[in-house]
């Protein structure tokens, strides 16, 4: 690549994003060359990627494999939080969406909307964190875009990522596949991400050591599918994994309600099987929040035929991201799609859809 016609390198210490960084001229090219390209470089990049073209040409999938695509925009505030930042979150969030479909995540596209005046030092941190998260997850960032909006029209930085993955020929997972009698498993404690964000909100900041659980879950998913393939792959409707979901915004409660509606079933939960870290429980308590509705970014929910629940649980617990997995309930027949919970107290209650906005801008 020939040397470009600028002289001074980007001032990553004191510099700020200005409108020229999104204008398509030299400044933008410089931003890509000096900041994005090095951070996103990947050992696996082929000649068709990273040439500076308008798009990336991807290699063909293996015979019978199908392409899975998922997209997610990230607007979290604050941008940096215990356990991650908007960059790592943007990678994990989309990798997980692809993984929940049962696919092997391969590529990401990245779109930035930057606000004029945003510190280049912060941008560099975010971009480096994205690159590191992508490399750790084994996915390539293959194409991207940057736009800059005037000061006051954005909140520092917004990031959109789109993920592409490969789904094996006969595998099929869907929120519509849950059947009465199925078991519901959860990979660990709930509410960590949402409360980590809340603990750093300017208006609320409280002392806590709550860390976001933000993590890429595709390896856990691979281990689970290795142990218990999807029902479609088993060829036996009474066996196999039905679906995977990551309970992000709206928390576990919202995800369960979605599944109940999609599958035309009801759900019975056991509160005693749910795990909430003491710090998270305490923070929820004094903010008046219910951890069932608080976001997670590194947890997954699995529904499988009850015959395979023990084997699936074992596979989850064998992986570090699923070490605290439990069976949290079962799928039942219910034309009204109620999610109900047996409380630890000994009573019963509905676990309804989230109404309104419990916590804004958490992912």
């Amino acid at each position, binding site marked *: 690549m020939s040397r470009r016609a600028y002289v001074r390198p980007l001032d990553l210490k004191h510099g700020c994003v200005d409108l020229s960084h999104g204008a398509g001229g030299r400044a933008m090219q410089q931003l890509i060359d000096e900041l994005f390209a090095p951070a996103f470089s990947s050992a696996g990049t082929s000649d068709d990627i990273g040439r500076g073209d308008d798009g990336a040409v991807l290699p063909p999938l293996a015979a019978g494999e199908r392409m899975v695509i998922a997209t997610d925009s990230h607007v979290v505030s604050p941008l940096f939080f215990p356990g991650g930042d908007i960059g790592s979150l943007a990678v994990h969030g989309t990798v997980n969406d692809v993984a929940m479909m049962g696919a092997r995540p391969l590529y990401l596209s990245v779109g930035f909307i930057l606000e004029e005046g945003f510190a280049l030092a912060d941008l560099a941190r975010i971009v480096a964190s994205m690159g590191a998260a992508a490399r750790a997850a084994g996915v390539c960032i293959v194409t991207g875009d940057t736009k800059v909006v005037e000061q006051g029209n954005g909140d520092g930085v917004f990031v959109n990522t789109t993920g592409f993955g490969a789904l094996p020929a006969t595998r099929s997972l869907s929120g519509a596949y849950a059947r009465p009698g199925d078991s519901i498993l959860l990979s660990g404690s709930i509410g960590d991400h949402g409360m980590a964000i809340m603990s750093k909100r300017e*208006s*609320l900041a409280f002392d806590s050591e709550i860390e976001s659980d933000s993590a890429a879950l595709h390896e856990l998913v691979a281990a689970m599918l290795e142990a218990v393939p999807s029902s479609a792959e088993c060829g036996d409707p009474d066996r196999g994994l039905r679906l995977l979901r990551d309970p992000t915004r709206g928390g576990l409660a919202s995800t369960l309600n979605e599944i109940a509606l999609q599958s035309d079933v009801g759900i019975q939960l056991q509160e*005693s099987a749910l795990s909430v870290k*003491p710090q998270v*429980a*305490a923070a929820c*308590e004094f*903010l008046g929040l219910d951890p069932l509705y608080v976001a997670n970014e590194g947890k997954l929910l699995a529904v499988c035929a009850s015959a395979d629940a023990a084997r699936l649980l074992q596979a989850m617990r064998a992986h570090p991201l699923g070490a605290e997995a439990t069976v949290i309930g079962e799928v039942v027949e219910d*034309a*009204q799609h*109620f999610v*109900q919970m047996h*409380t*630890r*107290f*000994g*009573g*019963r*209650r*509905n676990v*309804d859809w989230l*109404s*309104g906005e419990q916590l804004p801008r958490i992912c």
Partner: protein
Amino acid sequence: MKYVDEYRDGSVATQLAAAIAAEADPQRRYAFMEFCGGHTHAISRYGVSDLLPPQVRMIHGPGCPVCVLPIGRIDQAIRLALEHKVTLCAYGDTLRVPASAGMSLLKAKARGGDIRMVYSAADALALARDEPTREVVFFAIGFETTTPPTALVLRQARQLGLRNFLVLCCHVLTPSAIGTILESQEVRQLGTVPIDGFIGPAHVSTVIGSRPYEFFAEEYRKPVVIAGFEPLDVMQAILMLVRQVNEGRCEVENEFTRAVNRDGNLKAQQHVSEVFELRKSFEWRGLGMVPYSALKIRSAYAEWDAERRYALNYQGVADHKACECGAILRGVKKPTDCKLFATVCTPDNPMGSCMVSSEGGCAAHYTYGRFRERVA
């Protein structure tokens, strides 16, 4: 979680449930009103009613601060934000309460009103102090629990000479509401609302003490048990009420001794009486105009009174015709008796105030208890 889990212990709940079942006479009916929304919420969230025998029934009371806020008061707050262009600070639930003409504070915010959710009165004061060019109005609502913090910020505003901070005072008084319910036709004459006793407020009582309820116990012959907001507190209080009824006693008992005494928080009371005085009359949603049931800002603090500064006239606005919030707040009807319940009125789209806050009888039932009315 220490000091919380102990009050949510399922095994203790089972023991209390057994005691209530053993002591409640199957030949008679026990109807107890939990005054506070905090109790309503605990009962619904933990499924307390599943642990009660059929002869013991709980009636939701009016003690949910946003539920009793009449439309006219929300309209005033909206006018302040949209017409007078102030920065209006309000507690979270208040934002969703339906006002006139399909408005709410949340909708007013979307139309450009500078409306902020705050967790405390002190946050509103801090905003006014940090941004002196902004006129900040704190929309002060709630019972005796939230009143002392409002009194404190008014005192601070005066000390600091803060001219850009104002309070729209809508604080109401618990004993007046209890009195109104006990004086209502349904309870006194018609007997359509059988109330055999009250679970008395938790947090309110930490401020006012247990003494104010003694009048109700004596005058109206109704037992009162002050209880904390944890589910075991509620169970214990129900057992104590059953015992009072069985023994023909009408006393004020205190289950919540870890926080409440007979006199309450005297310092808080002193601050409140320095800053506020009784209003002659105040409209409550569901209870109508109730004499001496609310507070207004004393003339010594007139400069910080949004109602005076902006000459806000109060205009009462009738609830939606089919909305039963009024009857529900008085314990006359259950949420499911309302035609709007779970049809056009849901937590996402509340028509009436009881559907707004998680402490409201309708919202609590919708969110936690709907499976009980399952279509067979």
